[in-house]
């Protein structure tokens, strides 16, 4: 782990490009901008490739390139010292390669796609910014550094979704994305805090040794590792659009299509998967409940999004739900411990999903920005490259052998089917059986989702590229194939979609092939397995694997076939009939299970209402109108009284003087006597001790008479004392004591049982 390499170049180059483009791009023209943007990313890609080669060749299996970004400490606070550095190991190598190269392709694509955009420079600035931030995310050597990139990509995503800010809809979509991501970040941040608090480190390099400390029970009987994992997963669910935080991603399609391809399909949204894989030590914490949660959420998301995808009509929305669904797949992968499979799917998905989006962009480019697939159709003949690349992507995502999607999806499905959660070892009886059944349930959900995926992807393909054109004649007139800057990336990605899967072929299939071929074909597993010690047990016997593969293929084929049945050559009448028959279901799916509405009802509107209430009610009325007005109110009232009293009548003035004089005389004497009868009684068997007067009083000022037994007759009279007086009682009982104090100067008398001017002073003795 000591190898030094200028990793910072990988992030600095795109960031530099961003700065240049944002600051000077407008003045320097589009050519310059595209040159800067593409060469920055290309530079990063080259440096990254060099670094990855270094990792592959010169480092031991679990080694990593590291680069101390800030010399010394980054944040120092008392006993806490955080460093900020970059780290390139095998896992991040995969990500870096995917991010840099796909980013480069999309940059190139965007130079064509955004050609006529007035804010060309801004767009590329943001895109470069995103690339830089994504690379920080990927390369960060600790959770805080990752978090910097994490938020950075969030910002870039916000900016790019709202790139066409002239429309409120786009700006709102951007805001929604950012805020939903923030909800995730809330968990992520707390996860970092918890991890740091309990374990004392947030560096990935130290994660190998923290498993023991993660076992500490923490809350509700679960180990701390579980909570850390859950909190981190909240962040991942936000970024990677999982239930319940997926709602932003479909809206995010408001951004330019290259953005959707790069950020909302290929790279950023997979960051959550990356983090789960990266922190697998934490997720592996016994009893793996966190992983079960991850897998469950992933499967649910995969299924839910896939079903929604079936009925959507917006080109990019379908792709968006597909992305959500595929991300669910990946989470099931990492959640069941098949980390390699998850990351593998991440990689292959990057190719074909980016391709799908770019294809969509190409189509919409030709359609003049139209996104409704109902208005397309028969585009295949106008745009052959787009069509055929799209065809390949669809095969890939549907999981047809030997396209990329088949292998990665199969790896996940197989991994899921084979998974055993260690929680079952901690349980017995039916509970254990339930846990054991859990992977199978997940598998079934994924299989259903895969069916849906194949169906809606091919529905998309058929509706868009086959049949008759359903748009306006003007649109038809303009239909054309996209420029080469756009088609080139399509082709490259198509090639990738075909080939990428071949480096992760399951072992059963490569059995018997030449060793070098086998090495290449199982390269991916071998590449990652040292970094990600596989937690899942050995896979099943070969026939099970073959059967699973066959099943998956069958499911995909079934989906494609169904789609062909209903949509080949345009939207068939059967499809329309089906829609009418299943009206309720269609409506539910069309409205995306009403999740947005539910959120609006449960969160957004209450927040707005509560905010208004707090402001108008608490702030303005209670605090400002009430609490801070009480004082002034009384001041005002008393002020008015004081003022009104001064009515200008001299005689009243003189009377006030006399009353004041009398008041002084009375007050000073009355209070003396009054204070004089304040006292307490202490009882000790038959004798009671009476303590009277204020200790601060001059002694001997008052003359007391005391009635010890409350019979109305004073037992002791003419007593002058200022400390204590004792009395012996003859018999036991409760006695009331009455004291009378007399001020000899004024003969002002105050009895402890009179009610004049102030409460009476109860004195009593209870003797035994």
């Amino acid at each position, binding site marked *: 782990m000591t190898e030094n390499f200028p990793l910072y170049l990988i992030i600095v180059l795109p960031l530099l490009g961003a700065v240049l483009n944002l600051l000077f791009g407008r003045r320097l023209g589009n050519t310059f901008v595209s040159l800067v943007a593409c060469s920055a990313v290309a530079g990063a890609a080259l440096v990254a490739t060099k670094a990855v080669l270094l990792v592959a060749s010169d480092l031991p299996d679990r080694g990593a390139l590291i680069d101390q970004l800030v010399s010394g400490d980054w944040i120092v606070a008392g006993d806490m010292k955080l460093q900020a550095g970059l780290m390139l190991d095998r896992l991040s190598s995969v990500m870096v390669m995917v991010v840099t190269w796909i980013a480069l392709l999309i940059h190139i694509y965007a130079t064509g796609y955004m050609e006529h955009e007035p804010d060309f420079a801004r767009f590329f600035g943001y895109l470069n910014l995103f690339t830089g931030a994504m690379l920080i995310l990927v390369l960060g050597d600790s959770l805080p550094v990752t978090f910097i990139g994490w938020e950075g990509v969030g910002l870039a995503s916000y900016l790019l979704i709202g790139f066409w*800010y002239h429309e409120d809809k786009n700006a709102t979509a951007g805001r929604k994305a950012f805020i939903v991501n923030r909800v995730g970040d809330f968990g992520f*941040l707390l996860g970092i805090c918890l991890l*740091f608090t309990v374990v004392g480190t947030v560096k990935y390099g130290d994660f190998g040794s923290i498993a023991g400390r993660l076992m500490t029970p923490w809350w509700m009987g679960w180990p701390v590792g579980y909570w850390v994992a859950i909190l981190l997963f909240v962040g991942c669910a936000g970024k990677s659009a999982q239930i319940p935080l997926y709602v932003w991603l479909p809206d995010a399609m408001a951004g330019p299509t290259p953005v959707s391809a790069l950020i909302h399909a290929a790279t950023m949204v997979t960051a959550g998967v990356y983090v789960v894989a990266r922190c697998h030590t934490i997720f592996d914490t016994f009893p793996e409940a966190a992983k079960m949660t991850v897998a469950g959420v992933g499967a649910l998301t995969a299924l839910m999004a896939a079903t929604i995808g079936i009925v959507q009509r917006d080109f990019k929305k379908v792709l968006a739900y597909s992305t959500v669904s595929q991300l669910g797949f990946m989470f099931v992968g990492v959640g069941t411990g098949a980390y390699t499979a998850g990351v593998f799917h991440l990689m292959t998905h990057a190719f074909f999903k980016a391709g799908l989006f770019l294809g969509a962009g190409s189509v919409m480019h030709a359609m003049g920005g139209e996104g409704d697939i109902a208005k397309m159709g028969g585009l295949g003949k106008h745009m052959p490259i787009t069509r055929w690349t799209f065809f390949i992507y669809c095969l890939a995502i549907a999981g047809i052998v030997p396209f990329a999607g088949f292998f990665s999806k199969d790896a996940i499905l197989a991994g899921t089917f084979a998974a055993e959660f260690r929680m079952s070892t901690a349980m017995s009886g039916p509970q254990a059986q339930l846990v054991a059944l859990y992977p199978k349930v997940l598998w079934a959900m994924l299989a259903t989702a895969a069916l849906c995926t194949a169906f809606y992807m091919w529905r998309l393909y058929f509706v868009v590229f086959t049949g008759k054109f359903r748009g306006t004649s003007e649109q038809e007139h303009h239909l054309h194939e996209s420029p080469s800057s756009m088609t080139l990336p399509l082709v490259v990605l198509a090639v990738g979609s075909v080939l990428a899967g071949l480096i992760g072929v399951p072992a059963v299939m490569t059995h018997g092939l030449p060793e070098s071929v086998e090495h290449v074909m199982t390269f991916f597993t071998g590449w990652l397995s040292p970094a990600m010690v596989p937690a899942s047990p050995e896979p099943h016997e070969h026939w099970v694997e073959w059967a699973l593969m066959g099943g998956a293929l069958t499911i995909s084929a079934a989906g494609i076939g169904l789609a062909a049945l209903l949509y080949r050559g345009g939207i068939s009448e059967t499809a329309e009939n089906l829609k009418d028959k299943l009206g309720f279901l269609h409506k539910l799916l069309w409205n995306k299970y009403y999740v947005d509405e539910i959120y609006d009802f449960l969160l957004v509107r209450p*927040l707005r209402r509560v905010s208004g209430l*707090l402001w108008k009610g*608490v702030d303005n009325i209670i605090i400002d109108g009430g609490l801070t007005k009480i004082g002034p109110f009384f001041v005002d009232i008393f002020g008015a009284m004081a003022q009104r009293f001064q009515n200008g009548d001299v005689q009243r003035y003189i009377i006030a003087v006399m009353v004041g004089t009398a008041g002084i005389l009375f007050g000073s004497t009355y209070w003396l006597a009054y204070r004089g009868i304040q006292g307490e009684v202490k009882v000790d068997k038959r004798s009671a001790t009476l303590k009277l007067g204020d200790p601060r009083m001059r002694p001997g000022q008052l003359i007391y008479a005391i009635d010890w037994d409350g019979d109305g007759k004073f037992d002791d009279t003419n007593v002058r004392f200022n400390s204590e007086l004792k009395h012996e009682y003859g018999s036991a009982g409760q006695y009331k004591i009455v004291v009378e104090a007399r001020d000899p100067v004024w003969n002002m008398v105050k009895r402890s049982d009179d009610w004049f001017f102030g409460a009476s002073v109860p004195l009593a003795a209870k003797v035994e």
Partner: protein
Amino acid sequence: MGMILPIVTFLPLVGALLCLALPREEEQLHRSVGFGTALVTFLVSLLMLSGLEPAKMNHVVDWAWVESLGIRFNLGIDGISVWLVLLTTFLMPIVFLSTWSAIHDKVREFIVAALILETGMLGAFLALDLFVFYVFWEVMLIPMYFIIGIWGGDQRLKAAIKFVIYTMVGSLLMLVAILYVVVKVHQVTGQWSFALATAQKLILSKPEQIYLFLAFALAFCIKVPLFPLHTWLPLAHVEAPTAGSVILASVLLKFGPYGMIRFAIPLFPHAVETVAPWLAVLAVIGVVYGSCVAYAQDDVKKLIAYSSVAHMGFVVLGLAMMNSRSVNGALYQCLAHGISTGGLFLCVGVLYERRHTRKMAEFGGLWQRMPVFAATLLIFTMASIGLPGLSGFVGEFLVILGTFSAKERAFEGMPAMFENARMLSAFAATGVVLGAVYMLWLFQRVMLGPLTNPLNRKLPDMTARETAVMLPMLAMAFWLGICPNTFLKHIDPAVTQTLTAFKEKYSAGAADGEARMLGDSAKPKVEEPAAPGGNP
């Protein structure tokens, strides 16, 4: 170097006097003098950094002032105050530059008021004598009152009076508390001394400490402002001119936390165990509440003002937690908030100068007309909501982390204070989400969407002067986000030192009954207090 602190403190005052000597009509000259003075002050104040030993007081001056009462003109700087001082001196030239065209009425008066205000702020940050601190603390008040009242908006009278009255409520009680402490010191030692160092050695009984702490804390919490003492702030912010809002948000609010960590907490450690949990709860309420109320606003400035309530809630939370992470975070958040909110107010000033309104509904889609401005506002918005890499993140992160990792006992031997620190932390962290909610709402309503209002069609982008105002702020926003250790390397040792001293004093135990000085356990009480008038 020995004289640098008084020089820095009084340079603005000299500038103010210079302005008074110049003829009233020379407005441009006055502006230049104001700007020049502030700039020179900033440059001179940078010298303070050289060779600064953060854990102790540097460049101390200790001059006799009112000798018979033991009042000494005692200034010093350590890691806690140095960045706050630099923040002040850094902001003032910017403020002067930003008001170049915004203030065109009574220019001389404005320059003089602002310069006097600067002297007050610097003095209060530097004072090591309770009396000197109080004097500077109050000196700040009146120029600010004038700045709000003369150059403010429609409701400026109400705002100015409210500002002063609120502040006075706290500061008068603080005055009583200061007097009480000093009288106690005198009763124990026989010496009159207002020195912070002496007062820090005084150990009082626990109830006394609680009352005195509350008296101090009230003053500081009003300044912060802590919920529910915050209602002066939105009004003052909204009505104040841009310069006033910037100074108010960036510097004046910082006196709350500064006073807490410098005075209230070290002086009355045994009160902390009782009061701090309440402060923490109020702070968290402030975070959530401020955020929610900010979301309900339709006035740009008011929204930012309420965001200050939320952000400063983090600061108080950090202080109340009393561990080195959170306190560092709190102080860091002070700086970050100074830059980001100051920047936001400067942005509002740019808008206000063009349109003379701050209603969000009046704007929308300004990005088309003012891209540079939009970028600036965006960066400050992001800094404000704590995007990593910008100023807001480090402080919030440290506070949340510090709170989350707070042990039940801030120190060994203290009673359990924070059984639910994690809950507090979680609630505070919702502020991160809510911050995004209201700030992005603001940004969208002002900058994004269609440009519908015809009055906005011809708005010019930022001028060169305005850009010059923003650039240093932007640079600082990035610097604070990227290289936190530039600042933490000074703050951290000082915080550690303060907490060590706190622990030391705490473990000496509260006095029962008679007050005593730290270090001497059983000193006989001095019989008759000597005359404060210094009778021979």
